[in-house]
């Protein structure tokens, strides 16, 4: 059941526009969700991702970052607040409807289908979307050549880094407008993190994707995002240009150190 996005492909803004003029791709307004003994997991989250922007979200474990992504994706119903994507209110829609509006999700732990082949995993990224047909675009293999080599292999036999590439490839194969990434660097060797960061940056730029990146790994955050938000106890409490983080350790100390 494919949903037609309100903005046609040709309407994507060019990279020449100034940031203040860019349309808002995702806005989360006053989101309240989930209950933990003694408090809410999301306690009034406010954030915006502009078209073509990559925003990083950092914070300690248990602050609600994953829950936020899951709420945007429709895996849990918020108790209050709204989520707007590309001009539409997507609050409370089931995950497949959110996906078909043009948001793709790479969850923590990747969650690839281990007993399916690489090709099948990629195909599954397309199956639900009528408009896209069932042909995997060649660009995906251009970004991740190792997947082309291993397309007939069982996904469970891939290495950690390759599985991560598969998870991302599967997400972008349907050419989403917004990509939600939950700790893509987790469990990956530092050398691979670097190349992953570069590839992701390239993809976001070339495919004109906006990205909301939840990440603890500073390297990846610096490589990919222009803006960084900090989350604490279910709220966004601070934000800065990522460039600042290269030199100023104070913010990181405050929001990441245990």
């Amino acid at each position: 059941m494919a949903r037609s996005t309100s903005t046609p492909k040709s309407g994507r803004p060019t990279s020449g526009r100034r940031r203040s003029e860019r349309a808002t791709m995702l806005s989360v307004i006053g989101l309240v969700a989930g209950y933990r003994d003694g408090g809410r997991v999301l306690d009034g989250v406010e954030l915006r991702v502009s078209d073509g922007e990559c925003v990083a979200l950092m914070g300690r474990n248990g602050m609600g970052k994953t829950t936020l992504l899951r709420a945007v994706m429709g895996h849990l119903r918020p108790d209050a607040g709204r989520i707007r994507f590309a001009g539409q209110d997507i609050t409370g829609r089931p995950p497949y409807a959110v996906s078909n509006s043009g948001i793709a999700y790479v969850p923590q732990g990747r969650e690839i289908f281990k007993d399916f082949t690489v090709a099948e995993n990629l195909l599954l990224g397309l199956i639900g979307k009528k408009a896209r047909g069932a042909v995997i675009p060649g660009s995906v293999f251009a970004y991740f050549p190792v997947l082309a080599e291993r397309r007939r292999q069982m996904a469970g036999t891939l290495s950690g880094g390759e599985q991560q590439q598969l998870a991302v490839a599967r997400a972008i194969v349907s050419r989403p407008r917004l990509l939600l990434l939950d700790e893509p660097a987790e469990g990956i060797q530092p050398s691979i993190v670097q190349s992953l960061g570069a590839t992701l940056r390239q993809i976001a730029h070339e495919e004109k994707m906006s990205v909301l990146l939840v990440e603890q790994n500073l390297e990846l955050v610096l490589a990919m995002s222009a803006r960084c938000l900090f989350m604490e106890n279910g709220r966004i409490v601070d934000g800065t240009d990522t460039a600042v983080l290269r030199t100023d350790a104070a913010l990181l100390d405050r929001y990441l150190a245990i």
Partner: protein
Amino acid sequence: MQQALIIALDAANFMLALLLVTLGLAIIFGLMNVINMAHGELFLLGAYIVVAVDRGGGSFWLALLAAPVALAGIGLLMEELVVRHVYHRFIDTILATWGLSIVIKQAVIILFGPTAQQVSNPLPHALSIAGAAYPLYRLFIMAVALLVAGATFLLFYRTNLGLAARAVIANRPMASSLGINTRRMDRFTFAFGAGLAGLAGAVMAPLMSVDPQMGVGFLIPAFLSILVGGSGTLLGALLGTTLIAGASTVVSSIWTQIIAQVVVFSVAIVVIRLFPQGLTGSRR
């Protein structure tokens, strides 16, 4: 030797008929995590459709085609009206479907009466196999079951729809995140499973005395097959069904049916206890 052949054929017969029931149950459980306690009654309805058409003077072959279609419709109705409201409460799906089984059974009793009905055998000939005369109709059942089971496997393992279904079985939230419409999948799954059960009931009707209590007699072996074989894959259902049906037939040919039931049940419990994931090691 001849006796052994007959027993083997009977075992294959029971196994293939049971397979149709088990497959439907396994697909519904695997994909929706719903234990459909009404599945035996869906089988029952298939048989009673044959009875109804027979009473109305229609041809058996017509009934055989109508039953799965009708049952698919009924399955759809059940899913839409009841199941989808409770499937997040796992234990309550058992209760709700059990309640539906009572409703269906009572409806059948009201419409057809509580006593057993007979349907005439549409293929009353026998085929000579290795010197023994084996009923042609039983061979027909096996052929139909093989064909349908084969088609089901093809559907699941060779089509995009099947791929999507297997993805939902493997990881429902992730499949949904990829855009696979799980709501539609649920409807299709339940209808398909019900259709399979209806076909099994229709095709078995001429062999059995059709009475309102026959549902449970297929429900339990089907469940045991899934538990023994492993509920994560269709192959688990296939393996479990083979073992349960084979053991039942063999034991009941040596002793009585009751003893067969007790023995098979006890052995199944032990196997499940030792292999909680089933023999194929795959559990949802």
